[in-house]
């Protein structure tokens, strides 16, 4: 991350190398270019792709994933991972549905409870990981299962139906302000806020520092365990927001809702250019990654290709993205070494 900011490759690689290097350095630009090409190709095959209703659907789902992915991106930046986020989304979506069904709380209060519960679940992850210094993968695999078990208890074998919710509740997913879907606005605001925090604040720099070199960060006086805790707590809260939106989008919520979603979220993060070895990447990249995956999903739909391909594509995307990262960073390191000579 720090290295990629140095433009000092005077005697560096040739034109091709500089272009691929540039693309590698700005994953955001690469993704935007890829999406434009993909959208053009798909539109030729299926013109309805560009219709407002179709794009609205793509972006609504992308918005949910983008918000969850911006939390996951922060976690990955600190060289950790959160496997439990799909259960947080499922639990919050279900809980908000149950509260609204009971009619005990007004809608905004139910949302706040949902986001608060997400924050709490994230704090549990963060507390166990940083207090006992256990690898995040173990803890979050455990809580992935525990949180899902709580949804099953909450559900007691019954789902929340759209009919149980206040009238017009699900319309929020398709409402627009000045022609822009509300979900997209929410995602843009949240991703920008998280991005600004990482970019401009002391805490943000600490997140990158902990991920790129924990020992150096400790020497600088950064309390890495506290940063880790905060990052997991934030990821939980963002998962909570995504859970509330998931509930609005689908209306009918099952105990198994959002199962398997973590693969899509991690795929968005790595395809968005957040390095799995920590310390680099942006939440904007992760959000664009979410949009990219949503586009692929929708392209399969409008081109009437089998939906069964989707899971395999997510897997391939993860593998290709991390391999590309490794190749580019290796080439970049070599290039930097050449330049120093």
């Amino acid at each position, binding site marked *: 991350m720090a290295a990629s900011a140095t433009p000092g490759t005077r005697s560096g690689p040739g034109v091709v190398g500089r272009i691929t290097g540039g693309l590698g350095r700005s994953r955001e630009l690469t993704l935007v270019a890829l999406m434009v090409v993909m959208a053009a190709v798909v539109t030729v095959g299926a013109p309805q792709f560009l219709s407002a209703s179709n794009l609205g659907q793509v972006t609504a789902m992308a918005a949910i994933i983008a918000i969850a992915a911006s939390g996951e991106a922060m976690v*990955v930046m*600190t*060289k*950790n*991972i959160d496997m439990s986020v799909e259960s947080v989304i499922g639990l919050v979506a279900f809980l908000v549905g149950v509260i609204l069904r009971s009619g005990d709380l007004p809608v905004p209060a139910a949302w706040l409870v949902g986001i608060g519960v997400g924050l709490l679940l994230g704090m549990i992850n963060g507390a*166990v*990981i940083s207090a*006992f*210094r*256990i*690898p*995040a*993968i*173990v*803890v979050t*695999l*455990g*809580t*992935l*299962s*525990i949180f*899902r*078990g*709580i949804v*099953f*208890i909450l559900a007691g074998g019954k789902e929340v139906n759209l009919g149980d919710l206040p009238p017009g509740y699900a319309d929020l997913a398709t409402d627009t302000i000045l022609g822009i879907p509300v979900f997209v606005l929410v995602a843009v605001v949240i991703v920008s806020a998280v991005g600004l925090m990482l970019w401009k604040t002391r805490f943000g720099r600490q997140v990158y520092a*902990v991920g790129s070199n*924990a020992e150096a960060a400790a020497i600088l006086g950064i309390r*890495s*365990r506290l940063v*880790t805790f905060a990052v997991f707590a934030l990821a939980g809260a963002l998962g909570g927001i995504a859970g509330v939106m998931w509930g609005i989008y689908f209306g009918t919520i099952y*105990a198994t809702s959002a199962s398997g979603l973590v*693969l899509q979220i*991690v*795929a968005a993060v*790595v395809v968005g250019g957040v390095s*799995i*070895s*920590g310390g680099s990447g942006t939440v904007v990249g992760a959000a664009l990654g979410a949009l990219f995956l949503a586009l692929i999903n929708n392209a399969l739909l409008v081109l009437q290709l*089998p939906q*069964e*391909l*989707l*899971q*395999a*594509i*997510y*897997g*391939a995307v*993860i*593998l290709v993205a*991390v*391999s590309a990262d*490794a190749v580019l960073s*290796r080439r970049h390191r070599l290039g930097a070494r050449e330049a120093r000579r």
Partner: protein
Amino acid sequence: MSASKAAPGTAPAAARRSRRISPASLARWETLLVLLLVALIIAGTRLSKVFLTGNNFANLTSSVMEVAIMALPMTLIIITGDIDLSVESMVGLAGAVLGTLMVAGLPLPVAIPIVLVVGALGGLLNGLLVTRGGLPALVVTLGTLALFRGLANVILGPTVISVWPDWFTEFGFGTIAKSPIPYTLVAFAILVVVFWLVTHGTWLGRQVFAIGKSKAAARYSGVPVASLRTWLFVVSGAVAALAGIILAARFSSARNDNGTGMTLTVVTVVLLGGVDINGGKGSIPGVVLAVFVLAVLQNVLRLAGVSSEYQGIGVGLLLILSVIVPQLARQTRVVADRARRGRRPPAGPVTQGETTALS
């Protein structure tokens, strides 16, 4: 196993003790598991008259055999400091390939070896990306977790293959000649003997532990680190395919979601068995004990009327606890050491263990 960790003779004994779990304390971990198992068995007998019947024994063992056999290669992979999250999807893919080949008219004795090869190739993909590509095992196997499941979806779609030859389903849940011993338990036992001997009795096993303690040191001492790690993934893939075959036989069905969620249980069994998530430590007997602890626990919970959907909470808690408890023991030992000697102990696993999930 203990032979591989001859500590430098100059280090003071106390420091050495604080740096690793000694064989004596590993034995204590296994004693703990035996006690836990006995307690669960007593609880089971109190709970229901059915518990101590041969039928119930056959049920409770055969219900965890897929997890049990996958835990054996996973043990070695975690000892080397890697992880394989993709095994549950290989279970699904293996069932899908086996069912599709059978429906296409291939006899099972021909199809089964093909499926095992598919598993080995999937493992090879994991291994090459990790060792030659230099990528973290966690992310690679997360990718193949999606990829293998996706391939199962593509091959099977929503189809369920549920017509199998009698001998095949008999292998899945039958027992040997009216005894309470399932065929699958015999398969597991054979694999346990092989893994036990290789891990604790051969140079290969010592090399696995050496890789887990320090990849650099192992490489400088001539251990073929990359190829050994790759081979472990290949074995893990092939064994996961075998587990997929067994699961298809036991349920007499191949569906695209066969095995979903199993990785969690496999990792839980391995860590409950005393294998260190940071690599370098663990034993096959510990993991075998953990398999039976889990099997009896699930059985007792079921007899107590806890539905399997809620049991996920128990498995998740067990996973986290089986890492917290040794970590706490280690931390208190370090603190006690510090108090006794009145100065800071050498940097040990306590600082090493911090946030290494992705490295």
